[in-house]
């Protein structure tokens, strides 16, 4: 577009100087944002450290950034009370990922099934709503009784939490499928299964993938809470122990580790989203507009 305009009316085309100045402005703005972010972090952590060091707030209750760092270093060098730190992280992540996989698979299958079969949706709808209203975290203690202190009870809790998030999104996604698209492929000769594969699933995928961001957070919560309620290994147990020992630095340290893991997972899901939904028209970002 800009090329053809430049060819037709070379005098009116934007001079290159204007272009580079717009780009410079963009870069400057981005640098400013990063600098402000860094400043926020420094103010927060520095303030925390300063206030606890001067005993304005009590480090016994609120922990201390320097204490958290030394606690993390201690864990890395000498391990936790239940074995090395990496083992705890691995155990918790494995539970979360297994629960995530089971919950997503179940949610998608049931969501698509109920979205497609009106009768099933009408029959089971109220029960699913009722189960969703139950505070499911409480189920964790029942799962510990059923499945023991091993990882099975944590996987189960994570899966249950994930299932409902994904299920409702998949169900809604299937319901929102454009009827025109379905009619079109039916006229072209698609069987029911072909309609699901070619239209319903790709269309619901936007909804399902959006739910994965939230769902992964829930799977980590499920694993941690499960370990909190009774376990032999895992980050949740580390947190519970730190709490019982009046060790806020340990609690915050473990929280920091979990946050980093969740952010990494979030980033990976974002990558997956971009790859699977590459057919979508690109969103107009601020950077793209200039």
């Amino acid at each position, binding site marked *: 577009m800009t090329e053809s305009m430049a060819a037709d009316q070379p005098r009116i085309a934007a001079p290159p100087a204007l272009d580079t100045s717009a780009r410079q402005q963009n870069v400057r703005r981005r640098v400013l944002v990063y600098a402000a972010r860094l400043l926020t972090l420094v103010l927060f952590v520095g303030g925390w450290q300063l206030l606890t060091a001067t005993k304005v707030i009590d480090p016994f209750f609120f922990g201390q950034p320097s204490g958290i760092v030394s606690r993390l270093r201690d864990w890395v060098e000498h391990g936790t009370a239940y074995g090395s730190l990496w083992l705890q992280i691995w155990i918790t992540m494995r539970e979360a990922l297994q629960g995530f996989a089971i919950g997503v698979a179940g949610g998608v299958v049931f969501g698509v099934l109920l979205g497609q079969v009106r009768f099933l949706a009408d029959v089971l709808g109220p029960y699913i709503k009722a189960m969703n209203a139950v505070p499911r975290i409480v189920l964790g203690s029942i799962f510990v009784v059923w499945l023991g202190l091993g990882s099975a009870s944590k996987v189960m809790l994570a899966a249950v939490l994930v299932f409902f998030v994904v299920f409702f999104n998949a169900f809604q996604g299937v319901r929102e499928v454009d009827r*025109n*698209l379905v009619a*079109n492929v039916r006229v072209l*000769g698609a069987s029911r299964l072909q309609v699901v594969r*070619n239209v319903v699933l790709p269309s619901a995928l936007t909804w399902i993938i959006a739910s994965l961001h939230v769902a992964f957070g829930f799977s980590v919560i499920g694993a941690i809470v499960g370990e909190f309620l009774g376990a032999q290994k895992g980050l949740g147990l580390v947190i519970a122990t730190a709490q019982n020992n009046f060790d806020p630095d340990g609690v915050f340290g473990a929280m920091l580790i979990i946050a980093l893991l969740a952010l990494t997972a979030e980033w990976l899901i974002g990558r997956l989203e971009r790859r699977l939904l590459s*057919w*979508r*028209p690109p969103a107009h970002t601020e950077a793209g507009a200039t």
Partner: protein
Amino acid sequence: MKSDTLSGNNYQAPGSARTEGAGIELSGVTKRFLTPAGTAFTALRDVDLRVRAGRFSAVVGPTGCGKSTTLTLVAGLDRPSAGTVRVSGQPVSGITAGTGFMFQADALLPWKTVLGNVAMGPAFHGASKKAAQAAAREWLRVVGLAGFEDHHPHQLSGGMRKRVSLAAALINEPSILLMDEPFGALDVQTKAIMSNELLRLWDQTKPSVIFVTHDLEEAIALADQVVVMTAGPGTVKAVYDIDLPRPRGAVQEIRFEPRFLELHRQIWESLREEVERAYARTAAPREGGRS
């Protein structure tokens, strides 16, 4: 001619065995819908309509007179509440075999490429992926979109998307082609180009066409017969034979011919009544509310 160009690939379109278009016959068709409020809404009442095999029929009528409903009944996407719909003498049950449908809105799958969209028809009829894609490539060339195979629909202009839809609807060489205001959203120039394109392609395979539109000029320029429907509940008010000679040439020029103007005047007289009646119905309650 079409079969010549397509003989190179091994996909045999399901409709191509048939000689020419199939006749369409609606007799005493009534269609009622249940509104969300629970009351019945009559979209069509006692519709009798015949389209002879291989003929181009245009249906005009005011907004909401059940034109689109007629098409879904012929395609087998929906069932009439009363009366029968026959295609080639057979009552319609399930999706009507050998149908091409072009919708008012874009019905292309946004997650499939242009090639993937057009190749769906053969693929659903059991063609191998390779054969389906070869046929799709050929049809994209026919509608003038060679080189755009790997684009996604959102990357194309409205007119180009309509070309893709046209190729997708024609690839199975349907014996009936149903079109629901297919060019309604296009600008005037693009619409004229697409109309010419449609006539050219129709001439090659001669399916029976029902072309729904609210543009009377478009209807007369394209069709062999123009069906005027009444304001809802829709029924057939009158059928006009369009005796303009074929091939018609450019649709932009035919509208200045004396015979065209004569037909337009006649049909508009009949159509205007219905349009005014439909308009009065929507406008009246608003005025009543104001006073």
